[in-house]
């Protein structure tokens, strides 16, 4: 009887261990983030990104991953601002919206090619971020969060009210597909490679930033502004730079979003969306460039799976988020391999413990 019980225990533990071990191979571990060089694991990720849509050729999956890729670009920029520089921004969706509307207006009203609109979106988002960042970034902590929140709301009001330019609440339709030199990204598969290609480029850029002088300055500002300025780091400038960069990322993501969904309406850039992006960064892991991407993929999938349950989806969604925050407070990849080793050690001593020897 006792033997039987033990066996059941083992089976159940094994059931947990296998997926945990598997995730620990894939998911990035924020606790190791100070080892910032590119490694073999990055090649593995790159290969997985390239091959995944070919192996899993379901259009729904492709579409989902396109969205995940776009959200990941957004979360990556916010992750630099929140995770590295230690500031809070609740207005990031507004920059996403600025990017989307810039593309929408330039392509539908003025007939610019999407490729030009793509860069113009990044520039306009960065410019607006620079203009509002200069006064706003003097605030700290919650005040900064409130100010950026206010900016997001003001953006929404402007978009809703200026009907002749943005189409008001209805938004802009029939935005042309994103295209480069006559090559149109009109299927989900092509869009997948577009979104993830841009993401990989921006990811390499960000990783280069965080492993060099810029990343050290950001972390220094987050840890102690006095100490940072005592070694000659220009604290306001550092914050502004990373804020503008995050906004430029968001602008690019917004442009891709407009080119992929071919609509832009104010509902897509509301406060709820900002909170979603912030959740992606927190759940994925702060102070880490892999985390926001992992968080974006996870939450995009989670929302899609839960949409089957309709009215129950929101409660389940929030319970899952709370559980994730309780068990993985530093991000979903955190110390998974340490946990696996701990579990193995737990079993190894289990027999002795049961016999009362330990």
């Amino acid at each position: 009887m006792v033997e039987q019980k033990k066996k059941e225990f083992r089976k159940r533990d094994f059931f947990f261990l296998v997926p945990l071990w598997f995730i620990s191979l894939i998911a990035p571990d924020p606790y190791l983030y100070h080892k910032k060089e590119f490694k073999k694991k990055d090649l593995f990720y790159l290969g997985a990104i390239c091959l995944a849509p070919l192996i899993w050729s379901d259009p729904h999956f492709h579409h989902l991953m396109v969205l995940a890729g776009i959200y990941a670009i957004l979360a990556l920029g916010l992750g630099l601002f929140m995770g590295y520089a230690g500031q809070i921004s609740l207005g990031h969706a507004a920059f996403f919206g600025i990017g989307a509307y810039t593309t929408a207006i330039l392509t539908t009203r003025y007939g610019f090619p999407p490729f030009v609109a793509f860069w113009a979106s990044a520039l306009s988002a960065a410019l607006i971020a620079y203009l509002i960042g200069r006064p706003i970034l003097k605030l700290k902590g919650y005040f900064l969060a409130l100010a950026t929140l206010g900016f997001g709301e003001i953006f929404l009001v402007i978009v809703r009210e200026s009907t002749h330019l943005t189409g008001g609440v209805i938004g802009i339709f029939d935005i042309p597909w994103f295209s480069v030199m006559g090559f149109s990204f009109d299927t989900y598969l092509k869009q997948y490679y577009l979104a993830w290609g841009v993401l990989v480029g921006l990811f390499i850029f960000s990783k280069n930033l965080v492993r060099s002088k810029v990343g050290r300055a950001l972390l220094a500002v987050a840890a102690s502004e006095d100490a940072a300025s005592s070694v000659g780091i220009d604290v306001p400038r550092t914050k502004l730079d990373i804020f503008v960069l995050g906004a430029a990322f968001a602008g690019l993501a917004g442009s891709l979003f407009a080119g992929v969904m071919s609509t832009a309406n104010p509902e897509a850039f509301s406060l709820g969306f900002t909170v979603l992006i912030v959740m992606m960064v927190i759940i994925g892991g702060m102070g880490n460039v892999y985390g926001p991407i992992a968080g974006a993929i996870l939450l995009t999938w989670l929302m899609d799976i839960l949409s089957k349950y309709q009215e129950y989806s929101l409660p389940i969604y929030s319970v899952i988020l709370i559980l994730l925050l309780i068990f993985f407070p530093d991000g979903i990849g955190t110390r998974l391999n340490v946990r696996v080793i701990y579990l193995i050690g737990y079993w190894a001593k289990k027999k002795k413990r049961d016999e009362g020897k330990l």
Partner: protein
Amino acid sequence: MSLLSIEKITKEYDGIKALDWVSLKVEKGSIKGLIGPNGAGKSTLFHLISGVEKPDSGKICFKERNITSLAPHERSALGIGRTFQTLQIWGNMTVVENIMGGMDRRLKGGFFSYGLWLPWIRRSEKEALKEAKEILDSLGLLGKWESMASQLPYGKQKILELGRALAMKPQLLLLDEPASGLTLTEIEQLSERISQIRQEGVTVFIVEHHMGMVMEIADEIAVLHNGELIAEGTPAAVKRNPEVMEAYLTRRNRNPDA
């Protein structure tokens, strides 16, 4: 020519005078000590020099240049390094990154050249890493270069903070109570290190409560009491000064060194 000169500085907090008409000079290549009872205005003076706070009136000149209205990072860029009374290391970085962060102003290059990881950036980062390791070696911290700075013991963190200030190659180093919280052997090592720093050509301005140490290493000592400069001179002269004795009378019972 004096490296740093402070002229008729006044600073008030809510009507209480923290510093009152203080004038000081720090000569190039010397070690200057600043002592005084608690609340005498020593830390305030340091904050004014490093730019964390602005004086109500008066002038601060560094290398014959008026720096009174400059921001903290601009002063550091001119060559003023400092440590803090309450330890301010960057605990979210590794030990070696703390040192490399200290080199920030010496590493050139903008945002995009770092993001694109241009060849000369790669080279300069490599050199910075090598130099940082050399600095760590001289501080005796090389064995822990890859561990997080927050995991070091307190004494080592203080040394790391000093190392970070040295990594920026300052001409003037402000040390705010470097010996507080250290053991006696660590204090001995610290005073040796400070003398060594001076031999490398760095001017040191030091606030310290540990009298034995300041008297030993400083060339000249200034005494602040209730925001006023009451004495200035060689350690021996300051020790004999009756006003200084009086200011320290209450402390003397507790601290036989003073």
